[in-house]
């Protein structure tokens, strides 16, 4: 039976996280004043993001994506390529490409399951040759972001349920599948496959991986 390798993206395959993407857009605002204002407020929000992420990924998402409110869709799409070339591409971990290539050579479907935005992820997926991915999507009204995400919000348990649905639809064996993530919030995603692995894990995930005897990879 066919199987897949499911990857979280940020922190797992690339060293950047959601805040880097937000920071990139913040410094590419229209006019110097808006750039300064947006960059400063993003910077000041970082401690709040860090605390809420520890508390709950859902609360973090609610707060975090509000920062996109008022951004035009055209502008976000326009800068996506630049974001990839300037921020994401240099941030790909050296071991990530090896891991994907090895995994692909075994006939595993390559699937990225990420809480990042579709706009920012598309060029990276093309670069990595990954056709199957699920991302978060911003809600736009009249071409302007509302600061809310369209459901389903990809995070924590939703990642696991998306993987289960995807595997069922595509006829994939989850017990023969692999999952890679760096964050404790993705524990459900690791729990639904037969071969989970922690990649560049934070302290909490490292402890959990040790407890469950999961492999711990360092792709840096």
């Amino acid at each position, binding site marked *: 039976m066919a199987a897949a390798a499911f990857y979280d993206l940020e922190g797992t395959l690339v060293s950047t996280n959601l805040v880097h993407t937000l920071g990139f857009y913040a410094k590419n605002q229209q006019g110097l004043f808006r750039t300064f204002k947006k960059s400063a407020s993003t910077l000041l929000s970082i401690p709040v993001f860090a605390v809420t992420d520890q508390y709950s990924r859902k609360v973090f998402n609610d707060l975090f994506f509000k920062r996109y409110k008022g951004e035009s869709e055209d502008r976000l799409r326009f800068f996506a390529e630049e974001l990839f070339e300037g921020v994401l591409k240099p941030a790909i971990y050296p*071991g990530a490409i090896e891991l994907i290539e090895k995994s692909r050579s075994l006939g595993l479907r390559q699937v990225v399951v990420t809480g990042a935005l579709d706009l920012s992820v598309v060029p990276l997926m093309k670069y990595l040759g990954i056709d199957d991915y699920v991302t978060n999507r911003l809600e736009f009204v009249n071409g302007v972001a509302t600061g809310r995400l369209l459901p389903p919000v990809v995070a924590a348990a939703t990642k696991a349920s998306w993987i289960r649905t995807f595997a069922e639809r595509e006829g994939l064996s989850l017990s023969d599948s692999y999952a890679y993530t760096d964050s404790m919030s993705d524990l459900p995603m690791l729990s639904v496959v037969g*071969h989970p*692995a922690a990649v560049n894990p934070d302290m909490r995930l490292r402890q959990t991986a040790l407890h469950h*005897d999961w*492999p*711990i*990879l*360092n*792709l840096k």
Partner: protein
Amino acid sequence: MSLQLHRKTHESVVYIDRDSAPRIMPSGEDFILEDLPIGTRVIYPKPPIKGLPNREAAIRYALNHPHDCDPLFAQLYPGMKVTIAVDDISLPLPPMATPDIRQTVIEIVADMLAGHGVDDVHIIIANSLHRKLTEWEMKRMVGSKIFDEFYPDRYYNHDAEWAEGLVTIGHTKHKEPLRINRRCVESDLIIYVNINLVPMDGGHKSVAVGLCDYESLRSHHEPQTIRDSDSYMDPARSALNHKIIPLGKMVDEKLNVFHIETALNNRMYTGALDFLLKNEDDFTSFDRLKFETIRRTMSKLPRAARRKMLHSMPSQYEMIACHAGRTDAVHEKIIEKNFDQYVIPIKGQCDILVTGIPDISPYNVYSILNPLLVQVMALGYHFNFYRGKPLLKKGGVLILHHPCYDEFDHNFHPSYIEFFNRLLPETRDSFTLREKYEREFANNPSYIEMYRRGNAYHGAHPFFMWYWGENGRQHVGKVIAAGAENAHVPAMLGWDRADNLTEAIAMARSYMGRSAEITMLHQPMIGIADME
């Protein structure tokens, strides 16, 4: 009277009588004292042969007087490409006091290369599917001078999973490939620096195994080859050796290999731990004091600290021979010297073989002796230390003494954990394991990344460890793990369990009969029982 006569058979063979002192047995990180039944034969390591007084001179002499080829200096010319390949940290055991012999050899060779205008030189650790050495270990092995000059661009570990770094140099008659490190294949000269700790090491195994990949290795690292080896410590009767020789010949046809092999004596410890190598009947008061001090100190420490302490005590081996030149001629001389040091003539097999398992193995340097490694030390290494026929009778009982703790090193042995917990409950049959699961583990992307970018043993390595115990497993009638702190580890490995050695011997006697002959290997030891 008969016991008195027994005592004189060999200096390394001692029989327990009424007034014998209790014997020291290592059991993991502990040392225990055991009163053995009267009549038990205890085999000690052979006393060390005197080391060469000037090892630098001996190495230089070997380089200038090689076997079956021109001296090293005569093979060098400016602009040539040279690769120095070197054995990894799996030997000697424990890691030797600095300077390591490899450091001395490489320093001499590097000077000679520089003196002849050879500057395209790489040093590659022939770790095969073993874990890659850490930066600290690499530095310790060759010394700061070589390390600072070559690391990291020109001094690195072999990578058996780097497709671009490997080249197929031929196939066996069964169409199995031999894929070797590309840098070595493209070099004008490969200088292999070896330490031959046991007779299984060195020779054609050095390049053909140390620098190959998984596909090349699996043709001979398989259960039938181990079953057919009687034993794999005896090159003449080792099926493993017979399979590797044609590969080595293939290497010799395609590559220019200059082999430097060294043999060590048996001086594993001096100073604080030298009592471990002595007959307890000959202990001085100072020996007893040292033992009690170490035992009491160790008993106050947690296991991790005890392990750390033991691993920080380097071995004190001395070089007793160095030969250089073409592989076959060099290896023959070194094996002869190995046997001079290790062979102990033994008359008669035993019904019960007792062996303590010390925290020393090729695969747990600076790490944990996990259950699979306990298995490989007992049924693999300790069982195979014979020539002629096994020390233990067919169907006899092997008693090992070890806590058998369920602990694994997550960085070094990640695939061992899955092997132990997922596969062994399903089957212990080596052939089934190989056919059903070996490739899955070998190709597991997580294990490959941990091998390549970390310090993990290759995903397939636990399988080889299991096969390594195959001839022992087929030969023994029963294995009893004495001192095992839990029931599930021995059960998973297919062994019986006993609280202590006395209970284990009683169990073994009830299986083999009251008159069962008992032999104990006095660990830590490297010795080959030469069976009459």
